C-alpha cells in the first residue's frame, strides 16, 4: 500500500503530462517476480495493521488471560507467553506499530532528503558546500549508539521521540543520492527552457525536477522504511521502546528477558522476528526490483545470453 500511495502522489503531481507512468509502474511490478513478492507481503501486512480484529478472536493481546507457556494448540496457534498472553494475537496486533513506524519514518526521512539533497544541488555554491558537509557528517557518524544515548536521556518508551530520532538519523544517505541525481539534471534542456520561460525556482524544482526523480525518491522511501523497521525493532528489543505497547520488537524484548529460548518457548522468539524479517524483506525486495526495472543491465536471464555471445 505504501508503495502505491507514494507512487500515487508523485503520479498526481505529473498527472497532466505523464499519467501513463503509474500504469507502467503497476505493470513493471507485476512482471517482476521480486517486486510481486514484495508487494504481496506489504499488502498482507497492511491489511493486518488496518483490521487486526478480523484475524484473531482474542481482542486484548496484552491481558495475562491464559495459562503460561502453553505449547501451540488449536485455541492458541502459536502457544502462550510466560505471562499467559496469546502469541498469535500479539503478533497480529503488533503489526500496526511496526508498519506505522516504517511508513511515517520512511516518508518523513524521504521528505528531508529531498529538501536537503535537491536544494544543495540546485542552489550550488556555498550553500551546497555547507549542506553536503552536514549530510556527510550525518552519514558517517554511527547513528545507533547516538540513538541509544539520546533515548537514554530522553526517557524510554516515547514513540514520538523514537520516530523523531529515526528520521533525524535516517535521511542522509538519500540526500546524498538525490543531490547527485539533481546535479546531473541541472543543465538538461527541459530545465533550461523552464528557466528561459521565466518560471519561479520553486515551480521548477517541484513540477519539473521532482517528477523526473520520482523513481529514485521511491527507492529512497523503501530504503528508509527498511532502515526504520530494523532499527526500531532493535531499539524495542533492548528495551528502549514502549514496553507496554504491542509491537514485534517489544515481544522479542520480553521473550529475551524471560529466556524464551532456554525455557523451551522458541516460538515466542521465532514468530515476531520472522515478521520483522518479512516486513523488512518486502521493502528490500521492492527496492531491488525497482533497481532492476530502472537499470536494465542488472536484470537476470535473457539478456545474459545475448551479452555472452556478443563477447
Amino acid at each position, binding site marked *: 500500500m505504501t508503495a502505491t500511495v507514494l507512487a500515487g502522489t508523485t503520479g498526481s503531481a505529473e498527472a497532466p503530462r505523464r499519467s501513463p507512468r503509474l500504469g507502467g509502474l503497476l505493470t513493471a511490478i507485476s512482471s517482476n517476480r521480486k517486486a510481486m513478492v514484495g508487494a504481496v507481503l506489504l499488502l498482507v501486512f497492511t491489511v493486518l495493521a488496518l483490521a487486526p480484529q478480523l484475524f484473531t478472536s482474542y481482542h486484548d493481546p496484552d491481558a495475562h488471560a491464559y495459562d503460561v507457556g502453553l505449547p501451540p494448540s488449536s485455541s492458541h496457534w502459536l502457544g502462550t507467553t510466560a505471562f499467559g498472553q496469546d502469541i498469535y494475537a500479539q503478533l497480529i496486533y503488533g503489526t500496526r506499530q511496526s508498519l506505522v513506524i516504517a511508513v511515517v519514518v520512511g516518508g518523513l526521512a524521504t521528505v528531508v532528503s529531498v529538501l536537503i539533497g535537491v536544494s544543495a544541488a540546485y542552489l550550488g555554491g556555498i550553500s551546497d558546500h555547507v549542506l553536503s558537509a552536514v549530510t556527510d557528517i550525518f552519514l558517517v557518524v554511527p547513528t545507533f*549508539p*547516538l540513538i*541509544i544515548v539520546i533515548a537514554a536521556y530522553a526517557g524510554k518508551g516515547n514513540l514520538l521521540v523514537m520516530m523523531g530520532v529515526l528520521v533525524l538519523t535516517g535521511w542522509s544517505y538519500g540526500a546524498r543520492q538525490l543531490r547527485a541525481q539533481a546535479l546531473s539534471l541541472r543543465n538538461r534542456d527541459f530545465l533550461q527552457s523552464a528557466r528561459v520561460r521565466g518560471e519561479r525556482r520553486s515551480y521548477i524544482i517541484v513540477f519539473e525536477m521532482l517528477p523526473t526523480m520520482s523513481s529514485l525518491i521511491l527507492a529512497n522511501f523503501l530504503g528508509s522504511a527498511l532502515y526504520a523497521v530494523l532499527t526500531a*525493532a532493535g531499539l524495542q528489543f533492548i528495551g528502549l521502546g514502549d514496553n507496554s505497547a504491542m509491537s514485534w520488537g517489544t515481544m522479542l524484548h520480553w521473550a529475551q528477558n524471560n529466556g524464551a*529460548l532456554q525455557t523451551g518457548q522458541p516460538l515466542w522468539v521465532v514468530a515476531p522476528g520472522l515478521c520483522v524479517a518479512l516486513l523488512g524483506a518486502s521493502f*528490500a*525486495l521492492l527496492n531491488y526490483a525497482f533497481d532492476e526495472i530502472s537499470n536494465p543491465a542488472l536484470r537476470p*536471464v535473457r539478456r545474459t545470453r545475448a551479452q555472452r555471445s556478443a*563477447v
Partner: protein
Amino acid sequence: MRFLLQRLGFFLLTLWAAITVNFLIPRLMPGDPAGAMMARFHGRLNPSAVQAMAIAFGVDTHTSLWTQYVEYLHNTVTGNFGTSLTYFPLSVSSQIAQAAPWTLGLIGVVTVLAFVGGTLIGTVSGWRRGGVVDSFLPPVFVVTSALPYFWVGMMLILFFSVWTNGALPNDGAYSLDAVPGLSFPFIADVLQHALLPALTILATSIGAWILTMRNNMVTVLAEDYVRMARAKGLSNRRIMYQYAARNAMLPNLAGFAMSLGFVVAGAILVEYVFNYPGLGYMLLNAVNNLDYPLMQALFLLITVAVLVAVLICDFLTAWLDPRARSAS
C-alpha cells in the same frame, strides 16, 4: 595529495561535531537526568572528581557554558572521562580498555572478512553472469540483508546451542572456569565462543557487499576499456581483477565507509544477545544503569573507531583510483 588533505579535514570536522554533540546532548534534554545522577554520587567521590563530572554534564551552573566547553574538550582530548557509576570506583577509561579488545577482535575481524569475502564473491558472480552463483544468490541476499542481526543470532543460538544440547557456547567470551592466558586450551575456548556471534555478523552483512559488488561489476564490464582489454588479448584473470574489479570496487569502498554505522548497530545488538563482554554490551549496560559518563565515553569511542575506518577507506580509494589522487 589534495584529496587526502580534504578527507583528513573532513575527518577532523566530523570528530569535532561528534564531540560537540556529546557535549550538548545532556544539556538539551528535558528534566535534569545528570543532576539526578550527581546526587547518587554524592559523598562517594572526592571533590575534584565531582567537579570534573559537573563540567562534563553541565550541572555546574557557576561557570559559563563556554568555560565548560573548553574544559570538556580538554578532558576529552586527554582521555579523562571520569568515573564509572556501574563499576564504581573504577575509571571509565580502565573499563573501556578491558572491553575494547573483545570488540576489535570479534567485530573488527569479522567485518573486514565479510567485506573482503563479499567483494570477491560479488566479483566472480558479476563476471559469470547467468551462472549458478549469479542466478540464485541475489534474491537470497536481498532477503538476508533485511534480517534483524539480533534475531539471526538468537536463531543460531536455538539451532546450534539449545537444540543440540549446548554443542556451541552462546554466553560470554570464554568459559567461566577457563584460566585466561596465552595457552592453547584458552585460545581454543575463546575461538569457540566467538564462532556463533561471528557467524551472525558474517551471515547478515556479507550479502550487501556481494550484491553491490555484483551490480558494479555488471556495469563496469560493459565499459569500453574492458572491451579494449579483451581485444588486446589479455588473460581473463587479469581483466577480471585488474580492469573490472579494481574499478567496480570503488563505489563498494565508499559504501563500506557509509554502512559501517549499520554494522556497528548490528554488532552492539549481537554482543547483547551473546553477552559478549565488548563495547556494545557495555554501552547497553551503561544505559540500563543510567551510567552517563560511561555511556558518553563509549559513544565517542565507537564514533572515533568508525571515523578512523572511514579514513582508511579514503586512503584505499586514493591508492586504487588515480583520479582521486590527481583531481581536487
